[in-house]
């Protein structure tokens, strides 16, 4: 467990979340800042994929929300396919494009959540978690600028 993880997480908006995300991955003990970012981008991808799974479940359990779920599907596909992909390449070469991609991932999650009528979203926990992870990840990416 490197000091890097602790020092880095202190500079993010959510120290506890940051620690739990990074410490859950064995790579973190020997990673540099770029490596920590790659771990978090993986988390974003995993959470995105999980959420798409939940969207698919919700199509069956909440068919009246099809329109909103379609929008979420589109938004989360963007996260998993475009944002994660861009972030992974850019983080090694030109981190500001990775920052933009991660900010966008948070936005896509917010927009998905916001599409549901009040109280009816089946994805709230997941979307909120995505936003928080993106916040933390962005803070660390900015250290590379």
């Amino acid at each position: 467990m490197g000091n890097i993880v602790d020092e880095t997480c202190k500079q993010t908006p959510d120290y506890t979340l940051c620690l739990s995300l990074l410490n859950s991955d064995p790579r973190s003990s020997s990673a540099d800042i770029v490596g920590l970012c790659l771990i978090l981008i993986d988390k974003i991808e995993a959470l995105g994929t999980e959420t798409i799974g939940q969207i698919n479940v919700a199509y069956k359990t909440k068919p009246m929300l099809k329109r909103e779920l379609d929008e979420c599907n589109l938004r989360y596909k963007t996260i998993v396919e475009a944002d994660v992909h861009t972030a992974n390449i850019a983080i090694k070469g030109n981190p500001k494009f990775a920052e933009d991609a991660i900010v966008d991932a948070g936005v896509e999650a917010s927009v998905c959540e916001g599409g549901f009528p009040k109280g009816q979203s089946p994805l709230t926990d997941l979307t909120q978690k995505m936003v928080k992870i993106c916040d933390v990840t962005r803070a660390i990416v900015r250290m590379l600028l």
Partner: protein
Amino acid sequence: MASSDALLPISAREESDLNEETHRRRRPVKGLLAVSLGLLFIAFYVVLVATHDGSNRSNDVKIESDETATTTSRARLAGVSEKSNDKLWKLSGERNTVSFAWNNSVLSWQRTAFHFQPEQNWMNDPNGPLFYKGWYHFFYQYNPNAAVWGDIVWGHAVSKDLIHWVHLPIAMVADQWYDANGVWTGSATFLDDGSLVMLYTGSTDKFVQVQNLAYPEDLNDPLLLKWVKYSGNPVLVPPPGILPKDFRDPTTAWKTSTGKWRITIGSKINKTGISLVYDTTDFKTYEKHDTLLHQVPNTGMWECVDFYPVSKTAVNGLDTSVNGPNVKHIVKASMDDTRFDHYAVGTYFDSNGTWIPDDPSIDVGMSASLRYDYGKFYASKTFYDQNKGRRILWSWIGESDSEAADVQKGWSSLQGIPRTVVLDTKTGKNLVQWPVEEIESLRLSSKQFNMEVGPGSVVPVDVDSAAQLDIEAEFEIKKESLDKILGDASVVAEAEEFSCQKSGGASVRGALGPFGFSVLADKSLSEKTPVYFYVAKGKDSKLKTFFCTDTSRSTFANDVVKPIYGSSVPVLKGEKLTMRILVDHSIVEGFAQGGRTCITSRVYPTKAIYGAAKLFVFNNAIDATVTASFKVWQMNSAFIHPYSEEVVRAISSA
């Protein structure tokens, strides 16, 4: 693609905003009473007419609460642990607006008619602009595979007039170890014999930033279709003390008094932005200076550094190598941390390759330092146009929408209309930019308007289509209004505190503004993009003028960044207030006082599109009346030509 500004979900925006005219329109209560009283009808009728003038639509006072996606998002950009920004990400479902799902009709309207953009996919920085054998050449960072950044190569296009472009094949791809991870930004230099070289940054197979030399394969080809990379690349690698990812974007070279060529490359040391200097005779081997061209603490990495002379007295541009007593030098850098382009005017010392700003309090990259443009505008680069003796500025205008929308519409980013750049000979302290005159060839029909616009008025401007416009306008606050407000002690001086960003936007009324145009507005002004002046009373009855663009109500879409942009603009004694606006679908470019302050914005209306897009002139001042004299041109498309072999053959032999 979303910018680094945090996006505010609509939760903070009140529903009443969208129905403001129904909430705010004065009700004819007096009228009803008058009718029922009968005998006094005529007497009351006069009152009715005075208060119910049909052309007035009051854009009443609504002091905006601090809903700003703008101020907090700027703070968010600067800091990494501002807990107060957490509210921006609140997902409690309190929002009152329905999420807008983009459809192809709305998205396809966003494509511009006369701004440079590739046929599809992602573009960013302008590269190596130049004029050669009758053609203006433009290269650019391009992703041939997707509408997001990645797989970067050099796109290429040519034009006779900087407006009508023909797309050409890709000029350089990532086919060497030294640019395997990206053929990045670079600049062109003309040599004494008329040939030219290109220096560009490669991101190597190990993600190290190096500088490479390339040159045209065939100097007899005016289209410069093919490029050769020097076999001895890279010509420069990160020097000791410079990190491998802090070394990019070499400038055009200039001749020193000893006859050597000199370039500068942006970098950083810790948080200090710096510009390294190298001398060369052959562009293959270099001597690095121990001193820097310049450095400014706490500005972060300097990208896309640009360095060039401007005349103190004349309005033409200068070749990059020009020096002398009638010349000042500009240092410009793109700030990686904030995505703003900043410049400063100063003095260059050729003997040791250093430069100092005229005003160190607004040195390059400091938050108060000058910017070419106060909106969405980055990675800009100038070149000397020897064809017409001008210095011309290109800039990357990114998207302010979500990546989902970019992927759906299949493209991302524009270039601004190329601008001439000269020193403001009247102030001596700032540059002045103006769209190249060739853009006027796109002007079709025009209409001239002269009118007085009373306080609290919004007036529809009768032009047919309103998505492709060139507007030139002159405003004057009526003398009686000015005198009254300047003499009224109860009108508080606010010039020191005012900023476009924190003002709350065009719907917030002041004594002497805001007034200007609402572009890309629908008939009911439910969507609109005001571009306007705000004149603020300062201490000692001085006035300070601000030029702003308010995109906060430009669209109902909630996955779009909607800042309020702007800055103060110098207005000299005797000058009227002038503005020019170019509207081209999803881009609006505003120029105040002949280009002293410029603002580029990206907007994505959902209703104010196609035939529903309208133009209004407005005056939201509380008491002051404004006279407006303006001309509006319909703008033709530039019909930018997709790449095809037939076209290339045709223009090759032209």
